């Protein structure tokens, strides 16, 4: 059900190896508390280059504490890299395709976050094995739109049972350099219990002024519906004006001109194919900026994660549903 999650390192004769990227990602939505978590492990650069890095990020946002957690950067030889998992000293994430689980952990007590979770797939994965253009490079992608969660987080010393949480997982890999003319808009929105989940994706240029048509996937039980192109309208409104945690701090200091990014406060998505329809209204309540440095060329990327609440209304296969949930919107450039 989960797949393909196997990491895709370049072969020794791959001339594009310096642009190698491989990333395993997990979002956690704790509907009981409103907390939202992000765990990401990635490899960047040629395995033959000692500048190449393994990066682990674990972040949690709660209304009371704001952002906790941090990002860890290591050499490839300092990380334990498995077939479908990357473990650093403080952050780890692994996929077990046989068990259909994603396991993540974080040991960041200095940054007020510890985490141990296992997420189990509730829906089949969606995979795009083809090389989708991404700026001058390409990427491929697989995603599981909804997983159940067992485990807990410890946030600023307080335990948080994540048994009522849901999760989203993806694996993406490809060739690009941070700083290339590329960007994307992505979002995952989850209702609690056995409610629906929605995943939005749109590739753009770096300035987000030109982009591919967006796509939205809706999940409801065993049902899955795709909306693509002109059937999806994404509208951003307002500016997020809360504090923005930027990591790693050294690269944030280097890019002080990006300290006040123009991020939306609200995201509206309408998808309608004449049979089914979905309306999402996302309201951001926290934002973080992850500055990515390319180890092979002088270039930087900026990945913004907005977390917040979502209201949804949908009609899928004749079933009308509406309600509230949690979501993450990502804007990268």
């Amino acid at each position, binding site marked *: 059900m989960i797949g393909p999650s196997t990491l895709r390192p370049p072969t020794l004769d791959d001339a594009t190896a310096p642009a190698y990227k491989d990333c395993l990602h997990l979002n956690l939505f704790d509907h009981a508390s409103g907390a939202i978590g992000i765990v990401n492990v990635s490899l960047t650069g040629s395995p033959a280059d*000692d500048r190449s890095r393994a990066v682990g990020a674990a972040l949690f946002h709660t209304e009371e504490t704001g952002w906790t957690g941090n990002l860890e950067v290591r050499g490839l030889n300092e990380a334990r890299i498995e077939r479908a998992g990357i473990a650093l000293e403080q952050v780890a994430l692994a996929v077990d395709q046989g068990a259909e689980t994603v396991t993540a952990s974080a040991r960041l007590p*200095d940054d007020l976050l510890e985490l141990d979770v296992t997420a189990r797939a509730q829906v089949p994965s969606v995979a795009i094995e083809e090389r989708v253009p991404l700026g001058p490079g390409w990427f491929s992608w697989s995603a599981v739109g909804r997983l159940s969660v067992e485990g807990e987080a410890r946030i600023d010393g307080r335990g948080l049972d994540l048994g009522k949480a849901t999760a989203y997982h993806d694996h993406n890999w490809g060739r690009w350099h941070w700083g290339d003319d590329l960007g994307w808009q992505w979002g995952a929105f989850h209702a609690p219990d056995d409610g629906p989940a929605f995943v939005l994706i749109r590739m753009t240029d770096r300035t987000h002024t*030109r982009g591919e048509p967006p796509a939205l996937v809706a999940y409801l039980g065993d049902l899955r519906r795709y909306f693509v192109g002109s059937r999806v309208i994404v509208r951003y409104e307002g500016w997020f004006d809360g504090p923005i945690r930027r990591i*790693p701090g050294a690269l944030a200091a*280097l890019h002080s*001109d990006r300290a006040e990014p*123009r991020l939306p406060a609200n995201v509206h998505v309408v998808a309608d194919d004449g049979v089914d329809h979905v309306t999402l209204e996302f309201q951001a309540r926290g934002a973080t900026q992850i500055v990515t440095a390319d180890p092979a060329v002088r270039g930087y990327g900026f990945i913004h994660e907005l977390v917040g609440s979502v209201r949804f209304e949908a009609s899928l296969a004749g079933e009308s549903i509406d309600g509230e949930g949690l979501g993450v919107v990502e804007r990268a450039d």
Partner: protein
Amino acid sequence: MRLGAADASAAARLRETVGDRRARIRLDDESVHVCFRGAELEVRKARRGKVDGEGATDRQTVLDLLDGWIEVKDAILDGRLDVHASPEDVHRIFVAIEIVIDGSARAPALQALARDFRRDPCREARARPRAATRRTPWFPPRAEPDEAEMLTRLDLLPDGGEN
């Protein structure tokens, strides 16, 4: 010098930026003088003497900066980071810091230096992070409503709306 081994061009730019200037760097109760002797960076325990610039902070602030709990402007405005020099030399100090940070992204040895600093067994364990005490928009300022209106009118904003 670790930067020179990883990026000779960056090291050359750093030397050009610093020139023959000397600076005093103070961290908690330790103080050193730094300058270039030819291509080599010289770091000595500070004694009396004239310097062209001085920077002072503490270990907690450095770690809070490295971990993204505060921005540089917050550290300055909250009095946790002091820099004294002529305007030109203040500018040169920050350019020098930027060159080192930029180079560190592709220099594992410099990244290891940060880790060594964090885990120095001779220093106290990291205290609870201290975020900025307030939000102080400085640079770049947020666009004013009339600027946003103009950008919207000229269709110069990203796709999909008002931001």
